[in-house]
């Protein structure tokens, strides 16, 4: 695309420098594990499913999710991640590779889009502002929406393709434009519609020559959308979230808040929905500089006009930001665009891109800002503003190929389940210090009088508005209740043993819930079932378990006879018998 352009060594140096400086955003993906993000392990589960049947063209991500071809993450990230799995990587590494690619593509895309317009240093700064937008970091490290993250990575390329120079070969440019916009459509179709609007605005305000490219882009967008809809059989489920409940309050656009919670109706969202200090601050710097230059060159029409043109990216940026606020609701209703997105604040990524372009323009306005020490200061400022956000909540839990169970249409999933037994006091004669509990596999058959410990690792896909209860029943072979406990789910699961109930659970967060069930002393040996599930304490209705009609999950367990002999068993004899 750029082979005909006069690249200098400096231009290439700044591009490489820009890519190198994305390292702070990309590095957390190198953690040997994964992050606790809102989408949880669901993308990895579905990727594992796709890897198992890559030739099935009608494949859709349905494990622990309801595929929404318009508002949800598209299919492209899955197919991009597939080679990583084929090459021996885990599905999680495939997901992380796509996230990393999205950052690198985004930075390179902004640079290529803007370098001729604002110069290499300005384009580099814009690319870094865009990379470290709090919204983009949250998309990866808080929300884990890889379709949207990849969309935001490709979007600058799409704008660059659509705004290519008129001298480049038209058929290559058109093919390139169609391809890139099709990729956008397959990444996040709903946002691609908005991306097209942005590109049209850009063309109208700045490029003014790219009508043909706009048509190509529209074609590409529609092609991507059609492909996605074709695979999805045109079935778009109703969104469980009301977009109109999630408009932002102006303060949120400027807030330094950072969190890992979900978006909630009202102003108390659990995550950052800010435009970012760097994007806002540097955009304002550009604005002040333009105003200053306009005053200085008031008699020189061309220079003042040229400076003002640099402000133009700010117009769509501001409009898009305003559309995330409640007063814009009527515009959403009027245009029907509320069907394209889940949340109105998803426009912040596009708005941020415009502000990044505006931020980079500052270096065009005053070349002294592009001098290396000053440029270094601006870059440090940009990264410093977001540095504290690149620390996700990590986990080293290996999720397997799917959840062990899922409740309420995958609203909450059971990721891991461990059964252990408290070592009875009779075993206190052991020579070596022992843990308080042993896994059943190591302990052998639990005996009457023992206490079973069920350790459940939950992950919620969406927040709850009420506290659910957990039931754990020990049933005999005839289905008769032998023992039961009904604690609140998450009781004692918080820090320092505090309760952390379902209404507090953030999407994607891993909650370690422990329940103890005492086996009555007179329980006869034999096969038993430990069944558990969730229910609403108000209605006493069990939450449905995906794939089961009885609303419960079972673990088969074999109880042994009460071993009175154990009380007098010497350590040496136990050791000789191979018992713990």
């Amino acid at each position, binding site marked *: 695309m750029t082979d005909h352009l006069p690249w200098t060594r400096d231009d290439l140096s700044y591009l490489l420098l820009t890519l190198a400086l994305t390292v*702070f955003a990309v590095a957390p993906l190198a953690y040997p594990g994964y992050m606790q993000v809102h989408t949880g392990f669901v993308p990895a589960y579905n990727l594992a499913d796709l890897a198992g049947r890559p030739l099935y063209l009608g494949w859709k991500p349905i494990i622990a999710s309801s595929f929404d071809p318009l508002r949800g993450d598209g299919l492209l990230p899955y197919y991009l991640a597939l080679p990583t799995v084929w090459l021996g990587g885990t599905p999680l590494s495939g997901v992380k590779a796509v996230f990393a690619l999205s950052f690198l593509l985004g930075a390179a895309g902004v640079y290529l889009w803007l370098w001729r317009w604002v110069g290499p240093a300005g384009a580099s700064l814009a690319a870094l502002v865009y990379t470290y937008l709090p919204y983009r970091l949250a998309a990866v490290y808080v929300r884990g929406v890889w379709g949207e993250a990849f969309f935001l990575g490709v979007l600058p390329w799409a704008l660059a393709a659509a705004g290519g120079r008129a001298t480049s070969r038209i058929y290559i440019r058109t093919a390139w434009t169609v391809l890139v916009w099709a990729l956008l459509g397959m990444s996040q179709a709903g946002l691609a519609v908005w991306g097209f609007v942005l590109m049209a605005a850009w063309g109208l305000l700045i490029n003014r020559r790219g009508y043909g490219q706009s048509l190509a882009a529209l074609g590409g967008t529609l092609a991507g959308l059609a492909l996605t809809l074709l695979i999805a059989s045109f079935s778009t489920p109703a969104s469980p979230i009301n977009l109109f409940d999630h408009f932002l309050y102006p303060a949120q656009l400027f807030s330094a808040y950072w969190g890992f919670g979900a978006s909630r109706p009202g102003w108390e969202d659990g995550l950052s929905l800010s435009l970012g200090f760097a994007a806002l601050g540097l955009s304002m710097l550009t604005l002040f500089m333009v105003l200053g230059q306009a005053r200085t060159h008031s008699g020189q029409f061309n220079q003042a006009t040229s400076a003002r043109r640099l402000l133009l990216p700010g117009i769509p940026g501001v409009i898009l930001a305003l559309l995330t606020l409640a007063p814009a609701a009527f515009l959403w209703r009027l245009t029907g665009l509320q069907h394209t997105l889940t949340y109105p604040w998803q426009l912040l990524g596009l708005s941020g891109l415009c502000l990044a372009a505006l931020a980079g323009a500052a270096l065009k306005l005053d070349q002294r800002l592009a001098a290396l020490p000053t440029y270094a*200061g601006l*870059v440090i400022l940009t990264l410093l503003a977001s540095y504290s956000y690149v620390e996700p909540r990590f986990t080293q839990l290996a999720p397997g190929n799917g959840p062990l169970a899922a409740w309420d249409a995958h609203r909450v999933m059971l990721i891991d389940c461990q059964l252990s037994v408290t070592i009875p006091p009779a075993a206190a004669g052991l020579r070596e210090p022992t843990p308080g509990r042993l896994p059943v596999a190591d302990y052998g058959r639990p005996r009457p009088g023992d206490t079973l410990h069920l350790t459940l690792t939950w992950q919620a896909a969406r927040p709850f508005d009420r506290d659910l209860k957990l039931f754990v029943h020990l049933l005999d072979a005839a289905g008769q209740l032998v023992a039961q406990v009904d604690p609140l789910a998450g009781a004692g699961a918080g820090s320092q043993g505090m309760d952390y109930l379902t209404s507090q659970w953030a999407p994607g967060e891993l909650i370690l819930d422990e329940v103890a069930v005492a086996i009555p002393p007179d329980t006869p040996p034999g096969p038993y079932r430990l069944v558990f599930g969730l229910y609403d304490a108000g209605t006493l209705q069990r939450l449905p378990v995906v794939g089961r009609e009885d609303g419960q999950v079972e673990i088969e367990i074999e109880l042994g006879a009460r071993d009175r002999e154990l009380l007098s068993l010497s350590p040496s004899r136990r050791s000789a018998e191979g018992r713990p």
Partner: protein
Amino acid sequence: MTAPISNRPGLPSTAARVPGPATGGQSTISGHKSLDPYLVVTILLTILAIGPLLQPGYFWGAHDARHSVYFLFEFDKSIQDGILWPRWGPDWGFGYGYPFWNIYGPLTYFMAEGVYLIGFDHVSAVKLVFALSVLASAATMYLFMRRLLGRPAGLVAGLVYSYAPYRLFDLYVRADLAESFSFIFIPLVLWGFFELIDRPRLNAVIGTGLAYAGLVLTSNAALLLVTPLAGLLVAALLLLRMKDDKAGAERGGPRVVALKHLFTLGIPPALGLALGIAVTAIFFLPLLLEFNYVRVDQWTGGRFAFGGDFVYFFQLFSPHWGFGASIPGPDDQPGYQLGLAPMILFVMSFIAVPRTGEANVRRALRFFQGTVLVVTFLMTPASEWIWRTIPLSSFAQFPWRLGVLTVASLAIVAGAVVAGDQESENANLAPDSPTPDSPLPDPLTPQFLSLAVLTALIILSSYPYLRAEVRDPKPNEGPVSLAALFRYQQSSDDMTGSTAWTRRIPGWSVLAEQVIQGGSIDTKVNYTAIPPGNVLGIHSVEMDTVHELVWVYAADDRQSVTFMIPYYPGWKAYVYQDLREPADDLKARVGPLVAQPALRTTSYEGWIVVPVPSGEHFLEVRFEDTPARVAGKWISLASLLGIAAALVGQRILRKPGR
């Protein structure tokens, strides 16, 4: 293509821009008649880094915070006994003792002792030395970089060096006094060796020798890390210089013979190194020859075992910060980041360095860029196979200790980013400036403003990490006393080193118990080893940190006295005649030397066992200088006298009229 700045039309040459030898020898402090305002600003801006040290109290929970204080406590005990170069720590290992200062650089504790003797308490003395290490290291890095790239570069490098997260980790999380102090000498050593290649002269040899001596006497770990780095720098610069000379010869310049040329060029750095070693022979020689007589398995086993403490790639860039311990795996509590500002400046240095005019400086900067990349790689798990093949890997304990090298290298290359602005600095000087090299900056120039913003951002990027967990000491930490030292040793297994003769490392001792119960250690004689039957009688006359005198009665020649002191070369025993008069003053009864018995040791503890002749005598055990220590002392003294003579001679020869 970006041309070097010096070759660009309209700009002054690098030689004119960059203060240094070419501009009249302004590369040393003494070269300046007036105080360098950039140096003052560098030091003033570094004061923020020592902010947590200015709080009352102490960070008792930091990794090495307690032993830093107790090292001084022990060091002072020896000094108070009149030992000017302490080698034996009397209360290590629950009171049995350990030759700590024979194998551990004592310079930091000489500094702390000086502060303590002025009237500060142990904790304040340690805090003051920590503070000094920060301020002085900023100054030395400034001076080095001023020599290479000019004042703004010196300022930036000095601040990056002081505020790099690893430095703050060393200060407030690890509280590693010796390593923090070693940062003063690292720029000086690198500067010295650079100078000995670039412009060798007598002063440079002496400066390099003294800087290297400072490093040797400060931190063994830093010495092990910096020496290869300096060696590689010298080798790289030498080889490139030879290549230049060869190319010059091909263009008709003077012909050079490769090996002879290499030898000639290599003499100054070799002299600098030799001088450094000679000055420190008092420490270095015994360290080299007697190191094998201590047990090092305690340093390399257990929680110090090498292998699990690599820095994961993401950790190098993570903002995470904490005060806990390093643990195997990626979830360490402390942060191991390279630093936001240092890393950004490092990346930008790849644009800045090719614009640097002077070839040797550019080469040195490229060397340090490479060092950052290689050393950072060596900190990550991907390099484990390399560590496994390096025999010294077990002494590294934690690969993140290579942060010493990354910090220095990052600071050096960071300075390059502002070096290009030097010409602007001079160009924007007020018209009535006395000379183009005037160090007085005009605060209204854009260059100065950008430098001010950059320095502020360097500090700001580390500002969240400028905190220490100051708290009152727990009973097993302080207040500083012998009892608290023993409780600390027991609770932490720190300062429990043993000599090679010890087979069973103690976990507690009767001596420590005695102190804990409110008593004191008045003798180290093992009275439980006295056989029954009135065949042996012992009475301690006097004891200090390195000697004990006892009166002893032995019924026959088969008796021996056991001292609860693990044997180490230097311990000797002397038997004196008992004059028996005057009866009321035992010490006055000590007569002439009768015998100098050979020492034995107990099987497990390695304690000193001295056979005594029959009858009543006085027996003294004393920790003395071995031949290596004596030779070391004389070599050091001769070296220092040689340096003084050279400096005086040079001064005399430079006098006008000579």
